[in-house]
């Protein structure tokens, strides 16, 4: 069974997609079987969202619109969960309860 999903989300974290958020982001991405990718523009280039090397290399600052897409089993869940994580500012600061 194959599926695909795509969404965008605004990075509001003060420093952007830096080390600590990238660790969280890739860890979460890896919990899904689907292939997950990110890009800074709708037409790519696309990078493996499970690779911290690739995610960090985007050096996405605050205010960047992050494009997230997934394909394969659980693609929808993967995109939803990652969008949520970015929206929650990577759970930095206040403690959050994971809802997904």
């Amino acid at each position, binding site marked *: 069974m194959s599926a695909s999903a795509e969404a965008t989300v605004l990075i509001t974290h003060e*420093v*952007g997609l*830096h*080390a*600590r958020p*990238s*660790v969280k982001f*890739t*860890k979460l991405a890896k919990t899904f079987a689907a292939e997950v990718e990110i890009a800074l523009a709708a037409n790519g280039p696309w990078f*493996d969202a499970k*690779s*911290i*090397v*690739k995610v*960090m*290399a985007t*050096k996405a*600052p605050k205010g960047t619109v992050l494009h997230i897409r997934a394909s394969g089993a659980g693609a929808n869940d993967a995109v939803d969960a990652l969008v949520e994580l970015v929206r929650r500012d990577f759970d930095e600061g206040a403690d959050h309860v994971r809802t997904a």
Partner: protein
Amino acid sequence: MSEPLRLQGISASAGYAEGPLFDLDRIAIAYACKENTADEKAALETAIDIATGRLAALIKIADGDAADILEFQIAMLGDDALSGPAFAAIASGHPADAAWRQALDVEIAGYETSDQEYFRARAADIRDIRDQVLRALTEDGDIQAPRGAILYGEDIAPTRFLETDWSGGGGIALKAGSAASHVAMLARSRGVPMVVGLGVLGLGNSPANLAGIALLDAEHGGIVLSPSKAEIDAFRQSSSSFFARRDRAGIFLARPAVTKTGTAVRVQVNIADPSDVDGIDIATCDGVGLMRTEFLFGKTLPDEETQYRAYRKVLEWAGDKPVTIRTVDAGGDKPVPGFTVEEGNPFLGLRGIRLSLARPEVFRVQIRALLRAAVHGSLKVMFPMIAVVEEYRQAAAMFAEEQAALATHGIPQKMPPLGIMVEVPSVAIVPEAFAEAAFFSIGSNDLTQYVMAAARDNALVAHLNSVRHPAVLRLVAAVTAFGLRAEIPVSLCGDAGGDPASIPSLLEAGLRDLSVAPAQLAMAKAAIADVSIQARPA
């Protein structure tokens, strides 16, 4: 047994350690190529695993930001995208160490060129990862430093410090390094003895020099290799007295310094670099008795703005407590390329104020920076190596001229009190000839070496180089007594001020104002509390 070898550096964290030397730099050149690409590949995989394991172990003892960075590094190491290019290079015939280094250098360059400060700073984290794996690759088995070893090398990474087991003693001796480094701060907070700046030649790399026991005296900043029996005995005595004193000293740090008989003594700190103040609580001292400015003149002559910012930082840190800045004291044992001159006898040559007056275009830049910084706190300025009063007058006149020029341009400035270092015997013998100076600061290191004609960097005459020689103490007492009569404040800012063994003699000579290295603050106060003095000598 080889001859004893002594090296002098700078204490970055006081203490004593006796143990074998462990060469930190040896591993960098020790990678042995494997027979085939499969073995090279396996070697790199193993090294990445070892490095990951070490970082994971460090997380357990780290917290906050340090733990976050470690977790980030572990995630990077676990990512095939990082090691992929290295494994590809190995497959095409490159040895594992070169393949890894090259792959990581590409990654590091990507961060270094970022236009965002945050991402540029990550380059250091990736370099650390690179070196961790290189170390694991090249060490071929277990080459953890033995417990109690003195880690010796060019410099040391914070991870290396954190993973070393210091419970069995040991210390750090660096050819380069800095007392302001992150590791130096860690070393001070953990009480690990550390000496930096032992010099580019260091101890040499001959096996004879690196084998055997070394004595690290991080109270005075020295190391001895292949010590004689007598040296070992003397070292152990200094060591045990140091630890006894340190145990008692902690409680004195936060208190004002007072002798046993109730006389208050001002204790200020000596600093060499503006960042030195970051690790000092201003509440524990009475100000800065000596801020050296040679550090600014390290490689190139610093511009006015650079100097202004450096002085202002320290003045703002000190608040309303005084900060005494010494104009550049280059020459002697502190050459500055493009500024000092080559001389046969530099300690008796063109150094200190003599050099500044000979190079007015350089000196005036410093004067302007000082005048501008003066509005940000309680600044005092002193001139080093004054020998005749004309030098003081000439320098003071230049201050007045520059002040007038700044005022004409509407630039905020303030004339600080101008004082002199008392370190040339001509001043110490006839202090009344310098009564127009706003204050005297006795530079006991130079005063001692000039009075005793014994170079302070020559171990062969070290026995002569003592501030406690009656000739030196008599001059100190005379200058102090004159200051009291003429109402000129007198302080002392040489190493003797922080030396517990010399403090009783200095107080006895009438001094009530000492300036010491930050690391010696607590011990100096403890030593003062042990002194009984009666009324001040008339």
